[in-house]
C-alpha cells in the first residue's frame, strides 16, 4: 500500500540545554541567545543563556559530586573516561558537523579535530591510575617515620573553556576538562559563548558514559556572567582561565584572579588565544589541580 512520497520530511531540531548535575535543564532565566555559523553568520541554534544562578547551581552539583568522584578508584575513573571516548567516537559525525560550524571549517578539516578529541580522552583515561605514581613520593626522612606524599584532587574547579585556537570548540574543551576530572576534581565549565554547541553536546556523551551527575557541569552564556561567579564563589577551589580573552572588566584574567584571591583559589592563567590544541598536552594540566598530601607515621615495634 506504500506510495512514493514526495512530502518534505522536516528534520528534528535539537534543543540545546545546559548540563548540570547530570541533568539537562534550561537556564533558570528562560533566556536563550542565538548561535550562528562562524563562517556565514547564519542562525544555527538557540543556546541557553546560563546565569549566575545557573552557575551557582552547577557549583552545588559539582561539590555534591566531589566526594564520590574523588573517592572513586582511579581505575574506575579511567574506565569512565574511556567510555566517554567510545561515546564520542560513536557520534563522530555529529561533532564533525558542530565543530565545522563552530570553528568555520570544512567537514574534512573538522574531522581530525574530533578524532583528536577522542584520542585525548583516551590519553587521559590512561592517566588516572598513573598520576599518583609520577606526582607522589616516598620521602626518606631522617627519622623512624614512614612518610608518603600523594596527590589529591583540589576540589571543584571552574573552567573557562577555550574561545580560540585550532580545535578550540571540542578538542580544546576536552583538553582542559579531561585532566581536571581525570584526577578526581569536579568541574563547572563556562563554555565558549560564540561556539557552545560542541560543548553542550558533549554533555550527551558524558551523560551516557557512567559519569556520575555533577562531575562535569556545562554552562553556556556570557563569560562575564559565569566566570566572575565562579571566581568569587567560596565553594570553588580552583580556576582554569584557559579561554579568558577579555583584556579588561570583570571577565578579564586580572579581575578574575583578584576575585579568586579572596579564598586563595588555585589559578591556571589563560592559554594563548591562538593556541594549537592539537599539540601534545604533556602533564602540565594534569598536575595543576592537585594538592600534595604528606602523611607521616612512626615506625616502631
Amino acid at each position, binding site marked *: 500500500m506504500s506510495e512514493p512520497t514526495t512530502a518534505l520530511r522536516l528534520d528534528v531540531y535539537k534543543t540545546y540545554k545546559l548540563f548540570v548535575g547530570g541533568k539537562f535543564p534550561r537556564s533558570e532565566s528562560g533566556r536563550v541567545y542565538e548561535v550562528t555559523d562562524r563562517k556565514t553568520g547564519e542562525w544555527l541554534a538557540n543556546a541557553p543563556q546560563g546565569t549566575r544562578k545557573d552557575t551557582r547551581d552547577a557549583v552545588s552539583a559539582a561539590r555534591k559530586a566531589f566526594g564520590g568522584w574523588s573517592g572513586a578508584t582511579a581505575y574506575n575513573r579511567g574506565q569512565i573516561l574511556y567510555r566517554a571516548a567510545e561515546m564520542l567516537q560513536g557520534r563522530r559525525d555529529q561533532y564533525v558537523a558542530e565543530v565545522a560550524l563552530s570553528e568555520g571549517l570544512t567537514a574534512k578539516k573538522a574531522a581530525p579535530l574530533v578524532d583528536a578529541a577522542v584520542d585525548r580522552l583516551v590519553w587521559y583515561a590512561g592517566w588516572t591510575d598513573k598520576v599518583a605514581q609520577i606526582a607522589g613520593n616516598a620521602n626518606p*626522612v631522617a627519622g623512624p617515620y614512614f612518610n608518603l606524599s600523594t596527590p589529591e584532587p583540589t576540589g571543584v574547579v571552574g573552567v573557562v573553556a577555550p574561545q580560540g585556537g585550532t580545535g578550540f570548540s571540542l578538542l580544546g574543551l576536552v583538553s582542559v576538562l579531561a585532566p581536571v576530572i581525570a584526577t578526581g576534581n569536579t568541574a563547572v565549565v563556562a563554555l565558549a559563548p560564540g561556539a557552545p554547541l560542541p560543548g553542550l553536546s558533549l554533555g550527551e556523551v558524558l551523560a551516557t558514559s557512567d559519569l556520575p551527575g555533577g562531575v562535569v557541569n556545562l554552562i553556556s552564556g556570557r563569560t562575564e556572567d559565569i566566570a566572575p561567579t565562579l571566581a568569587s564563589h567560596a565553594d570553588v577551589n580552583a580556576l582554569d582561565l584557559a579561554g579568558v580573552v577579555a583584556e579588561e572588566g570583570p571577565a578579564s*584574567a586580572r579581575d578574575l584572579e583578584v576575585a579568586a584571591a579572596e579564598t586563595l583559589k588555585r589559578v591556571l592563567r589563560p592559554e594563548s588565544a591562538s593556541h594549537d590544541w592539537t599539540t601534545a598536552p604533556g602533564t602540565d594540566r594534569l598536575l595543576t589541580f592537585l594538592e600534595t598530601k604528606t602523611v*607521616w607515621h612512626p615506625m616502631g615495634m
Partner: protein
Amino acid sequence: MALFDYAPAPESRAAAGDIASTYGHFIDGEFVESTGSEALKTVDPSTEEVLAEFAQGTEADVDRAVAAARKAFTSWSALPGAERGKYLFRIARIIQERSRELAVLESIDNGKPIKETRDVDLPLVAAHFFYYAGWADKLEFAGYGSNPRPVGVAAQVIPWNFPLLMLAWKIAPALATGNTVVLKPAETTPLTALRFAEICRQAGLPKGVVNIITGDGRTGAALTAHPEIDKVAFTGSTEVGRAIARTLAGTTKRLSLELGGKAANIVFDDAPVDQAVEGIVDGIFFNQGHVCCAGSRLLVQESVHDDVMDALKRRMSTLRVGDPLDKNTDIGAINSAAQLARIQELTAAGEAEGAERWSPSCELPSAGYWFAPTVFSNVSATHRIAREEIFGPVLSVLTFRTPEEAVAKANNTPYGLSAGIWTEKGSRILWMASKLRAGVVWSNTFNKFDPTSPFGGYKESGYGREGGRHGLEAYLDV
C-alpha cells in the same frame, strides 16, 4: 616547692656573637645603608631590651636589591648545577659550624627556647641546605621535564616564628634551581637573616645571588609588587597572602603561599594515650604555639575526653615557662607585644563565649611578653577560638563521637594545612588520612619536619609545597 628544683642552666648570651647597634641591608654582596632614614628596632621579647636598630627598606632600596638579583641571575643561572650545589653545601657546613651562635641569636631575637633553636631549628636549617644542594645538578631527574629552567628573581617574604628555618626553606630551593633572591625577614626577627648574609660571604657566594632587605610590611609590599621580579614566595598570614595574590593577578609572575592554619589533632579512644598527650602538647606548645601547622583544635572522642584532659593538665603542669636561654625552658616568650595582644584578645573572647579556661600555675617574668600555656574545654565549633588562628600557646578542645564526625569537624575550616590522628587502628588511620583535607597529616605523631618531606596547605592555607622534590617546582619554569 618541689623536691628536685632545677637550678638555672643558662646558655651563654655571648655565644650569639656581636650584635651591631644598627644594621643596613645586604645588597649585591655588601652591607649597605638604606636610602631612607627610617629605622626600626628589634627587641629581645623576653626582656624588651632593644637588641639593634635596622633599616626600614624603601622602594629605592627594593629597586637596588632587585637590580642586584637581576644582574646576578645571568651568571648564577648559567653556572653548572654542580657548582651551584657546592655553594649550598658550603653554606650548609658553615651553618653547622656556627649553629650554636645562630641558635643563641635566634632565641634572643625571637624569644623561643634555646632547646628548640638548638635541637630543632638549626639542625633543620643545615639539613635543608644540604638536601637542596644535592638537587642542583640533578634537576632534569626531578620529574619536571628534561630541561627545567629557573624562574628568575624570587621575592621572598618570611615570618617571625622560625626566622632562619623559613629563610632556609625559601633560599635553599631557589638557589639550587638557579634563581636569585631578594629576601625580607620579619620586622621583629631580622638578626639571623642578617647573620646569614655574613655566611653567604664566608661561602664566597657570588654577589647579588642573595640579597637581604629589612623592613616591615611596607617593604614587603614594595618587594612583592616590584615589576622586575619573576616570582613571589610568601609565608605568613592568610590576609597578607590574599593581598599578594591580588597584587600578582593578571601578571605572569609565579606565586607560592604558605599561610595560616587551624589544625585538628584528633584523638580516638584507642589512642596510645601517653604519646597522644605528648603530641597534643608538642602540637600546641612547641614554639609558644607560633606555628602555622599547630594542632590548635583538639578533637577528642567523647568517651575518653575526661581521661585525656586529666592527663593533659597533669602534663601541662610540668611545662617550664621562662628565660628562652635556659636550657630547661619549654616555653619561651611571645614574640611581640602585638602578638601577645592578639592572643589576649582571642582568649578573652573564648572566656566571654563560655569556654572553660585552664592554665597550670606558673610564674611569668615581669618584663617581656609572656603567656601561660592555656587550654579551653567546652569549646563549640562556633566559638572564635575554634575558628580563628590564635598563633599562641592556646588549645581549644572539642569532642566527637564517630570517625565521620571527627572528619567533618576537622575539615570544617577554611584552612587546610595539617592534621593529627591518634589511634592504634591502622585502617582507621589510612581512612582518616584520606578524608582529611590537609597538606600534612601526622598520624601518631605531630609537628615533624624534614627537608625531604613536602609541606604546604589545602584551601586558604595557601598553595605550592616547600620541601622535598615537590619543593623544586615553585622555582622551576617547566
